[in-house]
């Protein structure tokens, strides 16, 4: 679409699935809103593409085809692949991907989080807790992970990171990995958590959207622990969530959109964001974290975080 010069910047925020229940999408919308608010005359609209991945391409095309948007921002590792052919049809359209990677496409800018590092830190923490002497920790060297479904980033980065992080503490720690089959069956998630706890697991990593509520509940009931991805918040289940590996998508989107509006964003480049770049992190200063996790563990965890951040520890990140 051709834009007339005097018109303000128009942004399409395209959410695969729906916004609700997904911290990353919520943050994307919030970050974009903030940037738009600070630039009078610019505007944005949020689109939800729904649960059927097969329709994402078509819906994205419809959005682009309106010709109304100077840029489309979206967040999901699969989106660059989906948008490649759309970009061919609409050579003027600019795309911005967060949590996705594509390099060398002149219409596209992308930012991929190093979720290996993020998961490594969470695995490390989980291992410390299962070995440690918190009230819920047991003697078994077992941690767990409950996910909604398998997907490439999970299999290639998150799960290996989680395992490697745990094994860096004690190579004999095993990860009990289970799947719900969807993103919303909280009761099944809670049953799974229950059966994992029965099997000796005391810390569970969860990546299962809305269904996570069931894990919080079950772990809360049984006095076990949860580590959580992508969200800065411990308050969803104080005392239960013992670690939160944050992606600062909110800030990233805010900065990127600001650049886009001010026309300083560099397209044609894919950036990988590591812990050292400041967009992938681990939340250490949260009061719930401090009050729940013993100082000894926090010190070790902080040490790991700082050393990854400073580049002292270099992790061999797998290719996506």
């Amino acid at each position, binding site marked *: 679409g051709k834009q007339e010069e005097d018109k303000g910047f128009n942004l399409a925020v395209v959410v695969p699935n729906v916004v609700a229940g997904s911290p990353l999408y919520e943050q994307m919308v919030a970050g974009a809103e903030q940037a738009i608010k600070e630039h009078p005359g610019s505007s944005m609209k949020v689109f939800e593409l*729904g649960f*059927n*991945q*097969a329709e994402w391409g078509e819906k994205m*095309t419809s*959005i682009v085809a309106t010709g109304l948007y100077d840029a489309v921002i979206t967040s999901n590792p699969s989106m660059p692949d*989906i948008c490649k052919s759309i970009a061919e049809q609409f050579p003027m359209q600019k795309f911005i991907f967060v949590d996705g990677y594509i390099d060398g496409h002149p219409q596209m800018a992308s930012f991929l989080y190093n979720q290996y590092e993020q998961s490594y830190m969470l695995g490390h923490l989980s291992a410390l807790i299962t070995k440690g002497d918190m009230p819920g920790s047991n003697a078994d060297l077992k941690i767990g992970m409950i996910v909604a*479904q398998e*997907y*490439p980033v999970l299999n290639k980065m998150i799960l290996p990171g989680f395992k490697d992080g745990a094994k860096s503490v004690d190579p004999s720690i095993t990860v009990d990995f289970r799947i719900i089959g969807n993103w919303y069956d909280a009761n099944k998630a809670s049953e799974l958590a229950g059966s994992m706890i029965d099997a000796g697991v005391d810390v569970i990593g969860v990546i299962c959207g809305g269904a996570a509520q069931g894990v919080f509940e079950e772990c809360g009931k049984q006095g076990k622990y949860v580590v959580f991805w992508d969200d800065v918040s411990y308050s969803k289940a104080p005392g239960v969530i013992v670690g939160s590996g944050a992606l600062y998508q909110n800030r990233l989107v805010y900065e990127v959109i600001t650049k886009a509006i001010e026309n300083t964003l560099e397209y044609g480049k894919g950036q990988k964001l590591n812990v050292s770049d400041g967009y992938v992190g681990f939340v250490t200063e949260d009061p719930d974290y401090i009050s729940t996790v013993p100082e000894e563990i926090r010190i070790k965890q902080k040490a790991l975080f700082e050393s990854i951040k400073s580049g002292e520890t270099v992790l061999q990140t797998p290719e996506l």
Partner: protein
Amino acid sequence: MKDSRNCSTVQLSGVLVTLAAAAVVVIVSIFILSKTPFSTIYYFFIGPFANKYYLGNMLNSVVPLIFTGLGISFAFKASMFNLGGEGQVYAGGFIAASVALLIPSLPGVIGIFLSLLVAAVCGALIAGLSGFFKMKWNTDELITSFLISNALIYTIDFFITGPMDDPTNNLLATRKIASQYHLLRIFPPSSLNISVIIAILAVIFSFWILFKTNHGYELRLSGLNSEFARYGGINIGKYIFLPMLWSGAFNALAGAVSVLGTTHCCIKGFSNGVGWNGIAVALIARNNPAAVVPAALFFAFIEAGANSAMINADVTIEIASIVKAVIFFLITSRVIYNSFRRKALV
């Protein structure tokens, strides 16, 4: 009878009254749910026709609905209930993609034909299994087809995200099929492709089978009154099994043409709802293959209208589903349908 023409116009007016009632309800619900009702109404009703892209995609989304509508109709005609459309569609797409991926170098026409054929046969066998259980042991086909479909969906998920996943991208999908397997696009820039012609042929074929052939005659009689059929010397066991084969085959083709024509790979969960919607299409069409086309069009129009309103106006996914629900509540109402017919007759 002598006034059969009159009768069909009366019938048509019954349909029109129902549609008008549905439209009124849609407009009222939009006024309640939307902050910009006029533009929402505009995009809902006009959006799907606004340009070639929307129009073509709407027409393209009619195609799988026609196939599932036919599939379910075939079963209904024989008084069989195929509740496993979802899994059969998914399996059809998966098998079509698998054939294309396993034999990537077949020449186009043969490859496409083979791929559709294998998909249809597999779909037929899947649904046929429920028919077989019913024929053999009188196991309720409604339930077995549903359960088998669910088990199948998980199994296919495994292959798509596991052994057949394309390692070079981050889609939950199989590798892309070779380009000679792609069905020819006929209405660029939309995805509309020659599968629409296959669908029309399928409608004609179904109509022919059901209403012109001996097979269809016996199938329909077995469905309408199986004791009468048996009395007349028809092997009714056969018409418990065969309709499920047809049903599964058509459902599988719905998936196969989506893969070969639209997505060019088997994406996880792509069948999302097509199987269910096929049941709705068949019921709206009262199991008549000829009426499946307008029913599927109507259905696709509602979806496309809701999508268009979603993209261009302030409607969200949920509101679209509420509007759709309201339409469903009325669309098969015999009271509304008859309200006009009665007056016309008296």
